[in-house]
């Protein structure tokens, strides 16, 4: 069995003509329109949590580890190595943060998270690049190994530490949080007015300027840096060429092994950082802390079409719905309406593009959601937690699928055997 999966259903492989690229301007227009709809729904339903600064801040915090997991996946897969071991490497990151954090503080925690994640990445690189092991298998093995190792070491190091336990570390400490004083308060006043759009925008801005963790800033910088390095530097070009056409890269003197190693180790470090941030934001390392975020990050990466911007959007969407479901049921209820409206808009768009079936399905689901919203006051508490997952599936199912994984993703490579 080779990794990579079946291509059936994803029509993306066709269409070798010049595709319409979304220009920044259209992108901006779409974003503003979407925000207008959001503001309108907020005004209609009075569910202030839809756009409140608190939601935005919580969404940001929830999104960061997922975005870093996705980013990590992108680093590896851009070089042609599938990394399903993200979850395990993230666990290593959380443990490293717990280990270093309680002894030397939060920034040491960050560093150790990076380091342990990178070691996890190195293991994956040895298995997949040097030994040519199927990428999925190696990833699964790492996902088994890492939590076991973390717990084993926890018993060794944390059991007797003050405030620690067999399955958790003592507190890691936190890094500084920044608030822009005047701005935050001013925006807060506007946010409270509940003016259409203006207050919503204020909430958004306040959410990202108030009590912002430096780690969030670090993550944002890392995403931008990754984009730059992969897209704009020789190193990035060579790395991507290993994921698209390793034999071609080899034929131009690129040492494919070295770049694959670099990519997978960076991948491990990035997701390790995600783990560290998770641990620091929670205050300590905990068994089972990652809770599948590595997998969700992988989903965000696929959602984002193996691109930095896309995966950030995916993680943001996930973080947003997750924050919302934790903050209040009324907002989730309003979310149903929002989703309904979004689907109805999609139905119209798809109808104009003559995708009649998709349009019809979107119409029906959209109508059902709007009806559901209209006839109920709240969503059963048990189901609220599913909101982020349902939204992700719906978005994936109904948005047009133009996914394009790196061509040699998951394909084994050995030097001197190609061509």
């Amino acid at each position, binding site marked *: *069995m*080779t*990794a*990579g*999966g*079946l*291509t*059936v*259903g*994803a*029509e*993306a492989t066709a269409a070798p003509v010049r595709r319409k690229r979304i220009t920044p301007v259209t992108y901006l227009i779409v974003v503003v329109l979407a925000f207008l709809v959001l503001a309108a729904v907020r005004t209609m339903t009075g569910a202030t949590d839809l756009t409140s600064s608190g939601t935005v801040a919580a969404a940001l915090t929830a999104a960061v580890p997922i975005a870093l997991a996705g980013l990590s996946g992108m680093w590896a897969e851009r070089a042609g190595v599938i990394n399903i071991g993200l979850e395990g490497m993230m666990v290593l990151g959380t443990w490293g943060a717990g280990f270093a954090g309680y002894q030397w503080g939060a920034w040491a925690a960050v560093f150790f998270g990076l380091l342990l994640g990178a070691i996890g990445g190195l293991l994956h690189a040895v*298995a997949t690049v040097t*030994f*040519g*092991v*199927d990428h*999925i*298998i*190696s990833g*699964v*093995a*790492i*996902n*088994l*190994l*890492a*939590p*076991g*190792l973390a*717990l*084993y*070491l926890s*018993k*060794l190091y944390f059991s007797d530490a003050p405030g620690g336990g067999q399955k958790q570390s003592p507190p890691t400490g936190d890094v500084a949080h920044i608030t822009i004083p005047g701005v935050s308060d001013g925006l807060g006043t506007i946010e409270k007015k509940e003016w259409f759009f203006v207050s919503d925008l204020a909430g958004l801005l306040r959410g990202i300027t108030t009590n912002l963790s430096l780690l969030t800033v670090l993550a944002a910088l890392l995403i931008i840096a990754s984009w730059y390095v992969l897209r704009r530097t020789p190193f990035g070009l060579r790395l991507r060429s290993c994921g698209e056409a390793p034999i071609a890269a080899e034929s131009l003197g690129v040492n494919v092994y070295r770049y694959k190693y670099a990519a997978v180790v960076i991948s491990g470090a990035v997701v390790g950082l995600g783990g560290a941030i998770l641990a620091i934001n929670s205050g300590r390392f905990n068994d089972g802390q990652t809770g*599948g975020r590595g*997998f*969700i990050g*992988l*989903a965000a990466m*696929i*959602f984002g079409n193996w691109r930095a911007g896309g995966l950030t959007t995916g993680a943001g969407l996930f973080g947003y719905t997750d924050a919302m479901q934790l903050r209040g049921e009324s907002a989730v209820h309003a979310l149903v309406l929002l989703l309904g409206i979004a689907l109805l808009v999609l139905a119209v768009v798809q109808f104009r593009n003559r995708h009649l079936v*998709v349009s019809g399905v979107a119409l029906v689901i959209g109508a059902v959601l709007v009806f559901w919203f209209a006839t109920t006051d709240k969503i*059963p508490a*048990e*189901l*609220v*937690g*599913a909101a*982020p*997952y*349902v939204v*992700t*599936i719906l978005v*994936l*199912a*109904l948005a047009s*699928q133009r*996914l394009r994984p790196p061509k040699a993703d998951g394909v084994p490579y050995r030097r001197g055997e190609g061509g």
Partner: protein
Amino acid sequence: MGRFSPRSILLGLAAPIGALIFAALVCSVILGVTGHSPIDTMDAMVDSLTKPRLGPRTFVNSLNSATTYYLAAVAVAIGFRMRLFNIGVNGQYQLAAMVAAALASASWMVGAPSFLRIALTLIAAMLVGAAWAGLAALLKVTRGVSEVISTIMLNAIATSLITFLLSPDRMGAVDPSGNDTRTAKIDVGGQVDGLSYPGTGSKIYGLVFLAVLVGLAYWFVLSRTRFGFELKATGLSEEAAVASGVSVKRMVVYSLLLSGAAAGLVGMPALLGDIYTYSSQNFPSTVGFTGIAVALLGRNHPLGMGVAALLWGLLDNTANSLDVAGVPKEIVAIMQGVIVLSVVVAYELVRRYRVRLEQRDVGRALGTTKAPVNADAEEVPA
């Protein structure tokens, strides 16, 4: 060169045995470095299989775990065979077990003949598992949604759905202790009797035979039927399969449905043979992921997965003994990870060696192994 030549068998054994030895070495090093004695650890593991009372119990528990793991592995393997990654076995089996438990304990079932009740329970579990997997299939063939994402999402959604359904107003029952949310208990008529094993009161799940049956069916379908051939062909080369007239979309739907149906059975041995209720507290909740590891370790092979499931079950069930002996039982998880990794590395190394041998054989058969300096000897057919 036959598949069963001595050389072939020897090579086949070299990989797993070498890997196990290597894994034992790695774990010894980890134990040694962290101040635990590898020998004592080994002792504790051996003890847990040989001591009176403990030994038979560990064996029975391991066999029971293996039964569950095996079913999960088959469910996973059906997809893997055609490079379809059903990460969602976990959600599928839990949802299926919950609905089946509710059905089996329903009051209108109580009078029915035992055989019928059990059969209905199993069928319901398979249907629910298949339906939940079918959602992922539907999303894939109609919208091209990667089954990796959709099944991860469906796992989480299943969790919410189960809690929703487990409310006493819906499919759940009131728990007398007030500490659990669960379905009503299945009474004796709906249970499957276990098999006694000398030396312990623990019983072997009666449904261990179901696992064997599923394994046989898996083997038969894959290696003896057209469907199995097409599944394998799709896995080896999607494009070749399409060119040969296989409808890959249909195969995706069938194999995910089958995979889901097998997943539906995962919870049944424990449900009908031991726990008798689907409880949010006490029903094993990660078997689907174990199934992935077992399938990979057993290389999707019906017998290989059986061996892998047993090994896994044994390791899992010696964990308590390690703890008692003062060795952190997490070493078991480490061992499992190292085994998976070193087994596949070993297989890969052996595979490379085997390919070289095979090419050499081909070369010999064609007479090109020795470079002929003057090639005029061989003439070209006109």
